[in-house]
């Protein structure tokens, strides 16, 4: 496996894939922690699928589909956030509307675009090996923005996420921070589409965080651990994909799910041993 790894490093598509994995993992590690802790998984799923509308428009109008998807995803995210507060429509219903609206729009535009739609499957299921130089530059820029934002605003993000009402009573800029964060969520999702695809990208934002949360309950550590877990999961998936000739998006999810199952079993085992040890010690003290 290691030989294969170094052999592959010689190819530019592989080193591109590696860089894309690294920066996507950092982005998803940080943003995913925010998503999971605030229970925004469903809205993230909605934004992901809505972004397909942007991809369709990009195809039709001849833009870079990722760029138009990013714009479309940010507008959907802000739309859901704004309307659920102001229009008195329940948030999860709105998510359902945006989710299917974006997909429908994407399908229509792809359909009316003359000619065959190349690598459409790549957007749906991910194609890590076709990552371009531009993609990587955008990912690095996003990593800089996301990590900078979380370093500068860490305290405020943590407190607003934990208890919005309380933050409002302290005159904290809750609305602005919420809008900025949901926009970052949208951009992170879109720039991760190349790695895992629209259908699978939610996994990078939830599985690593859930694994990290088994071992720590510290917000900062969850961000760091889940970035690492996402990175190793992506690399493992990439190797699996190359070895068995299966789509990389799916093999990445498979390796992350496998890691989750192993981690969960391990944590059950460890907590079982801890309880037994405590019982044993108490028993011993009692006898003394």
């Amino acid at each position: 496996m290691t030989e294969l790894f170094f052999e592959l490093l010689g190819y530019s598509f592989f080193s591109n894939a590696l860089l894309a994995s690294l920066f996507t993992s950092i982005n998803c590690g940080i943003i995913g922690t925010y998503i999971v802790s605030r229970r925004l998984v469903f809205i993230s799923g909605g934004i992901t699928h809505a972004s397909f509308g942007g991809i369709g428009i990009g195809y039709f109008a001849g833009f870079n589909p990722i760029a138009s998807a990013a714009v479309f995803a940010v507008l959907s995210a802000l739309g859901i956030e704004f309307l659920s507060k102001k229009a008195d429509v329940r948030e999860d219903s709105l998510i359902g509307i945006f989710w299917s609206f974006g997909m429908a729009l994407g399908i229509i535009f792809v359909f009316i675009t003359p000619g065959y739609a190349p690598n459409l499957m790549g957007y749906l299921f991910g194609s890590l090996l076709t990552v371009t130089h531009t993609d990587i530059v955008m990912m690095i820029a996003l990593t800089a923005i996301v990590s900078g934002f979380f370093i500068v605003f860490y305290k405020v993000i943590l407190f607003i996420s934990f208890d919005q009402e309380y933050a409002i009573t302290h005159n904290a800029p809750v609305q602005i921070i919420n809008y900025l964060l949901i926009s970052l969520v949208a951009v992170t999702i879109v720039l991760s589409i190349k790695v895992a695809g629209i259908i699978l990208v939610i996994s990078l934002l939830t599985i690593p965080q859930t694994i990290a949360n088994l071992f720590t309950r510290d917000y900062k550590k969850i961000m760091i651990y889940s970035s690492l877990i996402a990175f190793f999961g992506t690399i493992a998936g990439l190797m699996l994909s190359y070895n068995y000739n299966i789509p990389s998006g799916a093999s990445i999810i498979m390796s992350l799910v496998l890691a989750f199952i192993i981690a969960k079993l391990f944590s059950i085992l460890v907590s079982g041993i801890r309880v037994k040890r405590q019982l044993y010690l108490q028993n011993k003290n009692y006898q003394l």
Partner: protein
Amino acid sequence: MGKILEIKDLSAGYNEEIILKDINIVVNENDFIGIIGPNGGGKTTLLKVILGLIRPYRGSVSFTNGSLKRPSNMIGYLPQINQTDSKFPISVVDVVLSGLMSKEGMFSRYSGKQKKHAENLLDRLGIYHLRKKTIGELSGGQLQRVYLCRAIVSSPQLLMLDEPNTFVDTRFETDFFEILKDLNNEMAIIVVSHDVGTICWYVKTIACVNRNLHYHPSNIITQEQLASYNCPIQIITHGDIPHTVLETHRH
């Protein structure tokens, strides 16, 4: 005694329904007001208007110097504890420090002095040993104490508590109200409770809220007075308290 809060001709509610109508009340330094009233009568709505979480339909809430802008950190607030996500990955110390949010700026790190102050408060409420735990590991009563620390860490002028005795056992309830009594030397307190018997024992004055507000400038209230205030709640006397402040309720 300085005036710290004044509500004038206030009407407020949600979704076009007017829940509070023509409310007038003044809160002075060192006040200890118990807000009682039936469910749906607007007790929590009143707290939320004062906190700035709901914008009133009419009337005004003004603060210390007559300003309509609520100074940050002027009010400490203890919400009903089931309003927060107990699985959120945040430590006890961080929750307490979040009570200082606006005072020391949004971006700066906490000073050693502030951390020390937070730890002293935790110690004062007997939960210092829990400081590094995540909130999900605490019981309801412990969590309540953590939130009380958060509410008072900025030394606010006014402390507001929403049903603080819901998840608390009787023994801790007594401790809790003793702590409040102690805090009352430093700040005004408004406590909302359905448990009239207990709070009347500690508060100085009572406000009955049932759509309207009737201010009762004493902590002794009779069933007849409640009826005249249009406040249909039952007084339950606590027989074992040395001198009960309430008249016995007759059926």
